[in-house]
């Protein structure tokens, strides 16, 4: 398996994540796009994002490192878009899944 997520993998991941967001945050599925910013565009608050994180963790068998991401954003080390724009979030999910598979 490649270290870099493929477009196909990301696309599949995006569909699954978009479904989770639509179901969990009660957002029309068609408004969720790869370019959507979860907070700025979709209006997902921190509590709802935890609901989504739980659903993503369960669906993909991973642990989104939310504490580290939050710290990096708060300290200005990483722009929030890197984690909260969905195409970027999906790429990180793919990377976490690949990392877990490599350890197995």
């Amino acid at each position, binding site marked *: 398996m490649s270290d870099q997520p493929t477009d196909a993998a990301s696309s599949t991941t995006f569909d699954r994540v978009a479904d989770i967001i639509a179901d969990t945050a009660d957002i029309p599925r068609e408004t969720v796009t790869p370019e959507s910013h979860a907070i700025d565009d979709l209006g997902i608050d921190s509590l709802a994002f*935890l*609901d989504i*994180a*739980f659903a993503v*963790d369960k669906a993909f068998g991973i*642990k989104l490192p939310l*504490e580290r991401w939050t710290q990096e954003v708060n300290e200005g080390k990483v722009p929030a878009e890197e984690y909260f724009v969905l195409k970027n979030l999906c790429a990180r999910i793919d990377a976490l899944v690949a990392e877990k598979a490599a350890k197995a």
Partner: protein
Amino acid sequence: MRLEYFEMIDSVSQLDRAAGRIETVALVPMESPVFEGHFPSYPLVPGVLLTETMAQASGYLLLAHLDFRLMPFLIAVEKARFRAFVGPGTRLDVEASLEHDGSGYAVTKAAIRREGKLVADAELRFRTMPFPPELEPPMRARAAQIGLTGLMQPVPTESAPA
């Protein structure tokens, strides 16, 4: 239980940190101002306080799991069910198990039983955050008082002897 002080858990009977599981006991008092209104002449423990009881059992489990590094705060209650009336003087066995250990949050499943029969259950979600400085000492004191601290044996590692 001291209902009006939100001290729901009286003692911890078992703690398995490796398995992520806790068993606690809560004794419903014979009298409480809560029963004056819920309900007049027909005292019942409100469902919201049974939920709080499950949340506190879960909270002590998480405090042990996190080794008091973070404080859990209840953020969501899912699938709460109240299956029987609970009146004054009842002994409740309250158990909680760690369902998911997330980053910055945790999920538990909790249940309350009376004489082995299920009274209430729920899935609870917590945000886990650094302790507000003024909160950590009283939480540690209460955990010691109910016997949690004494049961917090180190979790065995793979290299440690069984």
